[in-house]
């Protein structure tokens, strides 16, 4: 397997995320990621897709799109949403910094972005052309990239 790309489209409903998690788990097995790293990738993708559903969609029909690219070096996943009611209000460096600053283990929410940052080798969050957010997560296939 050299360069390959898989695209998935799904409704903006967390009901479908279990299937996405199972799919990425199987794919990562074929790419020979360690079991621990597969769990990390599944969790990061769960968090990214949950954000896309809860914050980047106005209805189930909004839909989210996954672009999964792989080569000998890395697995790259881009999750694209179409934007929620306040996407561009919150997607500013100041607001993102505030979300991180407010994060506390005793809080019920606000941990998703922090987890994604912990679990990915590279993580990028950008406004896209359709008014939503593109989240890019890269996982290197080097076994030494296991996070402790």
């Amino acid at each position, binding site marked *: 397997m050299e360069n390959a790309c898989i695209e998935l489209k799904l409704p903006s409903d967390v009901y479908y995320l279990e299937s996405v998690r199972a799919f990425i788990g199987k794919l990562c097995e074929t790419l020979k990621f360690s079991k621990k790293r597969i769990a990390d990738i599944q969790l990061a993708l769960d968090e990214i897709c*949950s954000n896309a559903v809860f914050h980047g969609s106005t209805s189930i029909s909004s839909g989210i799109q996954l672009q999964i690219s792989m080569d000998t070096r890395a697995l790259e996943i881009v999750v694209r949403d179409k934007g929620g009611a306040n996407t561009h209000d919150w997607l500013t460096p100041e607001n993102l910094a505030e979300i991180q600053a407010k994060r506390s*283990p005793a*809080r019920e929410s606000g*941990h998703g972005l922090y987890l994604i940052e912990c679990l990915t080798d590279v993580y990028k969050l950008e406004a896209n052309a359709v008014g939503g957010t593109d989240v890019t997560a890269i996982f290197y296939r080097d076994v030494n990239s296991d996070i402790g």
Partner: protein
Amino acid sequence: MTGTEFITTRESADVKIIDVKTDLSSYAASDLRKVLENLLMEKVNKVVVNFSEVSHINSTAVGTLVGIAKRLRQNGGDLKLCNLAATLTRTFNLIGASSVVEIYESEKSAIAAF
């Protein structure tokens, strides 16, 4: 596999034990919240959640457990977790929630901790 049928409750003396038999992503987290909030309404205040059949948990589900633990403590009780796989413990540790919710190796030790 989701739905409240995969989250069942039983009792050991005055402790309610919840057996979770589904992975806890955002969808299943709402089912877990319903079960736990029902226990709060029934004035149950000692709860153990058994994770022996869970292989995945996300931040929404962790947040749900943190929130319910705080409410149970306000009522003089607590929420304790047991039988977590290493990957689940790691998620709690990364978030820092293991400093908020007590985690035990076995159901017996979780019950004994009340």
